[in-house]
């Protein structure tokens, strides 16, 4: 609980209704899209940069943790207030401030929903490329904080490649612009450091993003494979030929079953795995590329190749892919996943390791992932009400990530380290590496109030605690 004078101070900034301190209401804010949760002491809704700055000054004065929060769709616990403090909600800052169709840029507030931006700029023939699967709900601010990816990031690059500049509020409440209107970030790339800093270095209050022209022609193809191994070999083969599709996604049979139940998009439910391939460009180049890809897939045990014939059909295929993780709720009410990345050539090995781990623990695993990037999403499916299984889920998740690292991979492709993977950072980074990161953190946030307990391993927390209140371990308050 925040002492009431501090609550009053906060209310003085954002208004009475925009500070939530009722303990029962705070429960609703204890989680994001991942499964661990912890109560904030207050939820504060900011509507302007000034609000964010003033709230930050109050927090700095009283050394209260601040965790910026968008839609709360993150998958690594980035928005979870693990040390309590203020959940600084930016969902009311959802204006698109300007769109410049000539420069192909937009200036947006952090609460703007990813897909909404693409819908609005479509009238100028433009789109915003990074497309996380949660784009219907997730915010551009959250995307920038997590350096989010998405299916089309294989070709277009992740969020940091599309952020030109940001207005940010630092831990002392000071407001700054980093970088600006052009794609060239001159001098020290501060914007590059802040994108993907997961709320540990700043709160983001405005984002200038790059927009791209909607390609004149888009082709989307579906291919079935007898197994997930053959499908991964096909992925390596495509990329090996020097072809980089706009997107190259894989789903295993478990996922396809769940997706078809809701979307009826025409995914083959009897296949061992399916690949969804998309290319774009001019009509001629997409035709040629798709023909080349089809040939490679065909040579690599692909069958039932089917190209979407209408935009509606294409959209439905994508809706199915993007809703895949949510659709897993049809099998079990909870999922636990790490988004490790491996070099593409190691996909077949890592996927068989994942399969074996699932079998060892007798836990169903659903794979749906950005195959072209080697970016895994093995979803371990379970029911949180079954307390017996929780420990096994944790161990299985950790072992899968261990397999990724042993094959030369990294801990996260796009979800961020957040809370879930902080304990594993030392697998990859030495004390020196982590020390260097700490020194950067100290520059931006010397008192450590910004999203504490994230990214950096915490000695007090060696393992992950699956929760959402049921088996929750809330850390002792540190302030």
């Amino acid at each position: 609980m925040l002492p009431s004078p501090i609550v009053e101070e906060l209310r003085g900034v954002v208004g009475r209704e925009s500070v939530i301190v009722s303990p029962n209401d705070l429960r609703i804010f204890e989680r994001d899209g991942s499964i661990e949760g912890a109560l904030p002491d207050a939820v504060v809704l900011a509507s302007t940069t000034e609000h964010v700055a003033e709230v930050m000054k109050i927090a700095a004065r009283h050394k209260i943790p601040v965790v910026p929060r968008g839609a709360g769709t993150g998958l690594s616990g980035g928005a979870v207030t693990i040390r309590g403090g203020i959940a600084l909600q930016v969902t009311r800052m959802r204006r698109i401030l300007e769109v410049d169709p000539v420069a192909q840029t937009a200036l947006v507030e952090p609460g703007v929903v990813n897909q909404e931006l693409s819908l609005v700029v479509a009238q100028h023939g433009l789109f915003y490329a990074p497309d996380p699967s949660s784009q219907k709900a997730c915010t551009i601010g959250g995307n920038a904080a997590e350096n989010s990816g998405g299916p089309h990031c294989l070709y277009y690059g992740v969020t940091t490649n599309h952020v030109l500049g940001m207005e940010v509020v630092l831990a002392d409440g000071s407001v700054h612009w980093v970088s600006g209107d052009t794609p060239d970030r001159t001098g020290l790339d501060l914007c590059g450091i802040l994108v993907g800093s997961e709320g540990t270095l700043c709160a983001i209050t405005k984002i200038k993003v790059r927009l791209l022209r909607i390609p004149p022609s888009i082709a989307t193809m579906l291919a079935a494979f007898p197994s997930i191994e053959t499908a991964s070999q096909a992925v390596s083969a495509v990329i090996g030929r020097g072809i980089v599709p706009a997107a190259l996604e894989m789903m295993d049979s478990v996922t396809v079953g769940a997706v078809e139940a809701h979307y009826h998009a025409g995914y083959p439910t009897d296949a061992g795995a399916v690949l969804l391939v998309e290319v774009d460009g001019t009509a001629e180049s997409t035709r040629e590329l798709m023909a080349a890809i089809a040939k490679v897939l065909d040579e690599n045990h692909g069958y039932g190749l089917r190209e979407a014939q209408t935009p509606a059909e294409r959209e439905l295929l994508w809706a199915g892919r993007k809703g895949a993780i949510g659709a897993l709720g049809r099998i079990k009410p909870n999922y636990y996943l790490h988004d490790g990345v491996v070099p593409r050539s190691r996909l077949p090995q890592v996927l068989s390791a994942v399969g074996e781990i699932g079998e060892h623990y007798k836990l169903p695993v659903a794979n749906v992932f950005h195959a072209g990037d080697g970016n895994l999403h093995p979803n371990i499916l379970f029911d949180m009400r079954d307390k017996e299984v929780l420990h096994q889920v944790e161990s299985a998740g950790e072992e899968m990530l261990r397999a990724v690292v042993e094959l030369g991979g990294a801990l996260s492709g796009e979800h961020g380290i957040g809370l879930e993977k902080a304990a594993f950072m030392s697998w990859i980074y030495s004390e020196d590496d982590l020390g260097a990161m700490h020194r950067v953190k100290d520059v931006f946030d010397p008192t450590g109030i910004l999203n504490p307990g994230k990214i950096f391993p915490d000695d007090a927390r060696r393992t992950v605690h699956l929760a959402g209140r049921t088996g929750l371990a809330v850390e002792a308050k540190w302030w």
Partner: protein
Amino acid sequence: MTSNFSRLSDDDLATCVHCGLCLDACPTFRITGLETESPRGRIYLMTQWKRGTLEFDQEQVKHIDLCLGCRTCEAVCPSGVPYGRIIEAGRADVEDARRPAPKRLGSRLALRQLVAHPARLRLAGNATRLAQRLHLTSIARSGRMLPRLRARYCPPEGNIAPAFGERKHRVAFLVGCVMPILYPQSHYAAVKLLQLAGCEVWFPPGERCCGALFAHNGDLKGAERLREANTKTYRAGSFDALVVDSAGCGAHLKDFYPELKGRVKDLTEWLAEVGIPAPQKKVKVRVTYQDACHLAHAQRIKKQPRDLIRAVDGIEFVEMRHADICCGAAGLYSTLEPDMSQRILDQKLEDVLATKAEVVTVANPGCQMQLEAGLRARGSNMKVEHVAETLMRAF
């Protein structure tokens, strides 16, 4: 009073994986930016109540009250959370546990004592018409919301409207409770379209309110009683389909009347299935369409009404932004939660007016009343009409 939340199903609640894809589909989340006013937040809250991991808090009832029940979240939810069923059960459980709220008790009383009884409702309709003539209804907000009442809809003699030309189908028609009083013209147009489509229309005598308003407001017992009475009535006749021209009623009949399974059809769904004859008249009008939540989301019918409207020669159809987001009417919501209802309506009107259409076509009386009142207050002369009326322009 306390509740053990026995109507809420833990298995239904457990289908929510907390992914958050529903958030921006929720009108109250879009306005407040608050997780407590979002589907994921409401499900989380009800789950904790059900499992006893959070004590029931009177202050939190408002989060359940503020839900429109529009079920947009249900249509976008990949994991198939049956939100409509959850919120109906949750509301019924909450009614047992909450401290008495005069407005809600009043509405429950009005539903049970008035809406459930056709004769009393007719009397009330007549009284309201008289009051309107005397300009008495403008005093109250709910009075100002009402359309100018005409003579109520009366089914034809013998309760049968014959097919025009060859009889291809026999359908039952839901006259309903408030619709014949508020919007008789919709029913007249709907029945005529059915006749044109070769349907003999049967008006089941003794049919009462379908119970949708009851179920949506936490009175499942009241809804069950009406279902019992109506089911007997429907058993007495034979029909290919029960055609409904009010989206809220259609959704309720589909979900709540197992005996009618597969036979309840929204008017547009049915017309798209059986086909209507080629339009006879050429019209010239710019039309936009506002989805009814209980048609677009609960029944997943978005294409049929649009296709039917587009097929009319001379209609210039313009798609509205956010057409499938609630207008804030939501049954009794506009009366029970006037502030939020108005905020949602204000946003909706921006999108409606931006279409520069002459006519906004709707598929549900609640939407019609809400949009009419909103447009009236803005001094707009845009006309709101039922999809049946829009289609009848061509005949």
